[in-house]
């Protein structure tokens, strides 16, 4: 747990480089990050770092299919890199394609046997697959389906980050072995500015808040009321001074009671936080049969164990 962590909302410096993009991603300023990464890739379209970060932005902004395409291409161009496999696995797991997630992670570990994050993720995927098998064995009606996958997305291409500090490497041709990044084994751990687990930790809170919000939106889309209400803290204050019970009844009627497809997209998500409280602001694009709306929403989330729960929700 990293206490007192602050995700500042200071105006980003406009340096057109990778650390800047990484910082924007870390802050949840995905729109700006995307702008910058597109500009960066404009001059180096095959650069793995840039493509990787773009994949991360897609992943974080609920565009999994585009992210999957990018990470798949990266894993084909650089089969020795574990990170694209790991992130592919995270995306597959979000889509409950645990067999694909497992295959990707097993590949990541084969190429990079000491890759801690992939091991942890693979453990989670095994547990998920086990849970699915148990559901079939014991006819459990997917009792475990509501639990949110907690796989960790990798935000940096750590295995080639040693070169990052020199300058963005021109990795022009994936087919040319000479220009490929050094094999992972050759990267000296001492060169790492921060070891992978610590790095994952730094992003943990923002990632977790982000994931909680995406899970909330997915539960809404799927009309899974149990998961939807599960995203709210027990002391959540419903709007208009409604009782929790009345609010739940109204939400159930408007979500589960609605026929047809619901889509809820989250855009321009920005997260600021302090310790166990975070504030999230985003554009919410809602679409259902006969109704579509866009609004800017602000949420206050509180940490409860390893979960972030919605305590307040308001439309600006």
């Amino acid at each position: 747990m990293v206490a007192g962590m602050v995700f500042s909302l200071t105006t980003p410096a406009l340096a057109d480089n990778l650390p800047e993009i990484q910082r924007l991603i870390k802050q949840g300023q995905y729109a700006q990050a995307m702008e910058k990464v597109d500009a960066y890739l404009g001059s180096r379209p095959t650069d793995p770092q840039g493509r990787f970060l773009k994949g991360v932005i897609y992943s974080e902004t609920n565009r999994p299919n585009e992210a999957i395409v990018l990470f798949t291409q990266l894993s084909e161009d650089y089969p020795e890199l574990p990170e694209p496999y790991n992130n592919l696995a995270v995306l597959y797991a979000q889509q409950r394609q645990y067999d694909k997630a497992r295959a990707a992670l097993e590949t990541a570990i084969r190429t990079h046997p000491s890759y801690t994050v992939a091991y942890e993720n693979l453990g989670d995927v095994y547990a998920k697959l086990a849970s699915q098998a148990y559901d079939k064995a014991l006819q459990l009606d997917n009792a475990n389906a509501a639990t949110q996958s907690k796989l960790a997305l990798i935000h940096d291409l750590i295995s080639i980050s040693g070169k990052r500090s020199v300058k963005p490497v021109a990795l022009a041709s994936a087919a040319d072995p000479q220009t490929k990044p050094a094999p992972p084994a050759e990267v000296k751990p001492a060169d790492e500015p921060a070891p992978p687990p610590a790095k994952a930790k730094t992003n943990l809170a923002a990632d977790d808040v982000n994931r909680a919000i995406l899970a909330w939106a997915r539960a809404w889309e799927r009309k899974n009321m149990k998961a939807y209400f599960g995203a709210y803290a027990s002391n959540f204050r419903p709007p208009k001074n409604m009782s929790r019970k009345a609010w739940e009844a109204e939400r159930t009627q408007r979500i589960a009671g609605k026929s047809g497809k619901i889509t809820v997209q989250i855009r321009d998500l920005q997260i600021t936080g302090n310790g166990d409280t975070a504030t999230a602001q985003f554009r919410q694009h809602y679409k259902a049969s006969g109704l579509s709306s866009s609004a800017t929403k602000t949420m206050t989330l509180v940490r409860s164990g390893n979960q972030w729960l919605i305590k307040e929700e308001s439309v600006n």
Partner: protein
Amino acid sequence: MPGRKTFILGLGVCLIGLPLIYWLVAPTGEANARQFSQPLTTGAPPPITNLADLPESLSANPETQLLRIFNEIEANRLDEALRLTETLIRQHPNYRLAYLIKGDLLLARARPIDSFGALKNAPADKVADLRAEAIVRLKAYRERPENGFVPRYLLQMRADQRFAVIVDAQRSRLYLYENDVANGGQPRFVADYYVSQGKLGADKYAQGDKKTPIGVYHVTAKLPRKELSNLYGSGAFPINYPNEWDRLQGRGGGGIWLHGTPADTFARPPRASDGCVVLSNQDLDAIAKNLQVGLTPVIISPSIEWLSLGDWAREREELNAAIDAWRRDWESRDTERYLKHYSPRFKDLPAFAAHKKQVNAGKEWIKIGTENLSVFRSPGKDEMAVVTFDQDYRSSNLNNRMKKRQYWRRENGQWKIIYEGNA
């Protein structure tokens, strides 16, 4: 009784593999029981240790694949166990036990597990059912009928009875035997299968008691899949419970069938039915071609008693001699000698005796033929035998042919008829 054996009932099947530890604890055994470790002769599947030598037909058998998986787990080759389990599931996507093992093997990769069905908060009854299925399936392969022993019940089959079905309720197992006519009618083991029985076990007494009957029955009909609901799977073979003896004992209920399994599951737990004997669909299909309506005996035992072939032949001789003495004493028209073959508990014995005396008095001669004779020892506490034959009655003033069934019971060391009637 010498040579009489029961299977051992207490076998602790201990499957240890780290980090996966499987303990399948079996019920405690009988004091005088012994383990059957020798493989049966021709036709019997070999013991579990020789799985690699199995013929192609058996190696494709899902139960054998399951045993292979447990072997791998025991040897701590969990990756291979998982691979085999996934193959098994691809072949039988409704095999719940295989899914449970898959769950355990995957979970074992995520964290150490210490039990079968290691899912947290798993419904205990469902895990217990699958565990029970695993235990009986494993035991069936680790304890084979011993060479030279046959089920006590199959004393004599008529020549056109080609097969017999013996069910062992305790071991959830159905054994198919062939009438080896060329070999003096010795029962020859063909195959054995996992079965489910009544939710509350065996020894049915009343309608709705969810128990499977114990006794000597036969197949009375064949009901094809298309006439049945999904519950019965690929087909059904009703049997004649309650039989004549059951009715005399006041046993009730009915509708006891051998049948298949609904499509959503490969197998049902060992205790699952309302009294029927349930096979997996592929096993039902395998025995179906051997079942003859009106002929094939279905003998359901609490736990099969096995006789050495020598003891089997002696018991068969003894009953045949008793039946033949009854036949000859009838022909002698000495009614007192004839009536000595009947138990004091025979229904309305005085009236029966008076009637026989009157009939025999009017005869100059009687000839009795007993063709197509079958003799089946009945399982259970009473020493009983079910004798069925085509009776050819000829006499000086009347001829009659009928199919007769008698229930013989050993009383004070003597076989006596306790019931007879049309079959």
